[in-house]
């Protein structure tokens, strides 16, 4: 396989909101920057078709008490997130600056020329999110990056980080549209590859890509960080979301309706009529409500917008256009499905796992020269933008005082990827990527899913390891596109195995980590559960947030 070499100061892996913000800031600081993106930066990551809510503290609106504002966030949108409060503080000290920057760059952060607070908040409580017109946010951020000289390379999947001794010196990957290895020599690397969305079974059995995050987010950043010895945390703590059934889409706070049962009885107590300021917070208080209703013989549950006023309907549709809903609303219009006539069933989405890369307030990981931002370190749009920006700034500073270290042709990780790629491309028969992905998803859902006890997980990890070994030895790809998909599955198998190890090690029940053999929550374990690879062995530890 041919090899292409590129040299830069700062390499951003993943061109979502975090990666582009990192690129923009690093270039402003004077660094040469490459953003390597698996798809196309104009249309990649969770924010690809836009968003409409941005968490921000605005001093003139909220007054001086930031603590109260952060506490409110922990009661609402941030309730499930297992990270340190220090990260939240950093985010909200900086978020408003980013809001102003984005507005200046051409992303309309206002509504009718004013800050518009709505959604993700309880009636009568402080409002935490502004509405913004994010439909073209990726286009705007790409333009800003290019304006600052950032080199964007689309269609390259970075697979591994490269180190010389303990120093990060770049990364290696494959092109997705041609058989070619790409080696990027960099002084600092920012990871921003997003979530891991194909670890557990999807909403639609057999339809792997039906996921609200898109199909390209396969935990590549976490997997490569782990292989290089960086710390990951809380892989055993899954999350679940809520949204329309079976058309997987997030953004429940954009809906203006009331969650009701078949007979019209509201599930929650927050609103009884559609309210454009608050939506229905039951979707955030209890994302499991639809599943519980079904289990209790009371299902289904609907998002019922039928009482919406004409003006509020137009308002909701406007924001849906900015929140990545046009595919759904265009199909609804064509099929005569009308928010004003038809309550839409809401469901609890399947488990999503993958944990996080440990990163601090400076977006530094546990490895010097390696930074992480966005969903793989600390997600949501505002956090991705803030920590992308901070990560880019610190990566540029690190690069400025670091010399390039040449990458040897015989670097073991380059050799390993070449060999892996040649083998997968060269085999005549064997499992394809999707066959392997289905095997992974069912093993995760059945053995480290909603219920996890020791014997179940010991059986599960043993089965998963067998699948992993067979996958690595027998998977096939007929072209470069399928090769990248195979490498994604190898990354996810790695993260799946780590999930089992960490779930076995967390001997308590907490949130969605449900261990009937350890049914109580252990208050002393309200900590980051950390895993890292030390000389091919796994080390697990507990750290305070």
């Amino acid at each position, binding site marked *: 396989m041919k090899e292409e070499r590129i040299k830069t100061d700062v390499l951003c892996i993943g061109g979502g909101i975090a990666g582009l913000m990192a690129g923009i800031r690093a270039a402003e600081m004077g660094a040469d920057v490459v953003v390597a993106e698996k798809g196309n930066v104009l249309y990649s990551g969770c924010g690809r078709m836009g968003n409409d809510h941005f968490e921000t503290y605005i001093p003139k609106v909220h007054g001086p008490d930031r603590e109260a504002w952060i506490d409110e966030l922990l009661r609402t949108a941030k309730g499930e997130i297992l990270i340190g409060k220090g990260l939240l503080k950093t985010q909200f000290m900086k978020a408003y600056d980013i809001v102003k920057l984005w507005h200046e760059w051409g992303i309309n952060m206002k509504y009718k020329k004013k800050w518009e607070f709505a959604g993700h908040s309880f009636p009568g409580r402080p409002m935490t999110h502004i509405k913004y017109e994010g439909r073209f946010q990726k286009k705007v951020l790409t333009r800003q990056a290019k304006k600052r000289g950032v080199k964007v390379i689309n269609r390259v999947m970075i697979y591994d980080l490269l180190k010389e001794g303990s120093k990060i010196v770049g990364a290696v990957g494959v092109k997705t549209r041609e058989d070619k290895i790409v080696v990027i020599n960099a002084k600092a690397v920012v990871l921003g590859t997003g979530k891991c969305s194909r670890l557990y079974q999807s909403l639609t059995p057999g339809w792997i890509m039906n996921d609200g995050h898109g199909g390209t987010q396969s935990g590549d950043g976490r997997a490569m960080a782990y292989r290089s010895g960086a710390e990951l945390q809380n892989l055993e703590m899954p999350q679940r979301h809520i949204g329309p059934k079976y058309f997987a889409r997030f953004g429940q706070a954009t809906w203006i309706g009331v969650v009701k049962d078949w007979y019209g009885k509201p599930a929650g107590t927050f609103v009884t009529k559609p309210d454009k300021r608050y939506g229905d917070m039951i979707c955030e208080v209890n994302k499991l409500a639809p599943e519980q209703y079904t289990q209790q013989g009371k299902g289904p549950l609907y998002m019922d917008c039928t009482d919406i006023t004409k003006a509020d309907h137009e308002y909701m549709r406007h924001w849906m256009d900015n929140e990545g809903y046009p595919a759904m609303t265009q199909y609804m219009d064509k099929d005569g499905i009308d928010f004003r006539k*038809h309550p839409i069933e809401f469901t609890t989405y399947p488990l999503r796992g993958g944990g996080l890369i440990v990163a601090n307030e400076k977006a530094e990981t546990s490895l010097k020269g390696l930074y992480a931002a966005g969903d793989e370190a600390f997600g949501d749009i505002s956090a991705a933008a803030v920590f992308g920006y901070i990560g880019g700034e610190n990566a540029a500073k690190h690069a400025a005082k670091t010399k390039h270290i040449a990458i040897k042709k015989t670097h073991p990780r380059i050799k390993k990827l070449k060999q892996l790629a040649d083998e997968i491309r060269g085999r005549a028969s064997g499992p394809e990527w999707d066959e392997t992905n289905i095997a992974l998803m069912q093993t995760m859902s059945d053995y480290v899913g909603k219920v996890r006890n020791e014997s179940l997980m010991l059986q599960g990890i043993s089965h998963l390891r067998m699948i992993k070994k067979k996958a690595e030895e027998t998977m096939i790809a007929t072209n470069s596109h399928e090769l990248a998909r195979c490498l994604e599955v190898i990354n996810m198998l790695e993260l799946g195995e780590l999930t089992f190890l960490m779930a076995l090690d967390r001997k308590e029940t907490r949130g969605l980590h449900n261990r009937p053999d350890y049914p109580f929550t252990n208050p002393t374990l309200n900590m980051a559960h950390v895993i890292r690879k030390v000389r091919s062995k796994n080390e697990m530890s507990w750290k305070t947030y």
Partner: protein
Amino acid sequence: MPPVINEEECIKCNKCVEICSEDVFFGSKKGEIPIVRYPRECVHFNGCVSVCPVPGAISLRIPLPVQLVYKPEKVDL
């Protein structure tokens, strides 16, 4: 999910091929009508439809397992 191309309307600009991050159009050639090589990898986010300069030249077909479930106005028994 799978994009459907109206071959009579398509002007072969390949904008849909360029934008799709899942690369469902993999293998399409410049100046030719795009091939929907990997329809099952479509995530129905409308990127291709939104960049298409000719209204109606490309559209998404929402597959049966992904259809919305909505409350009917009445149920005949």
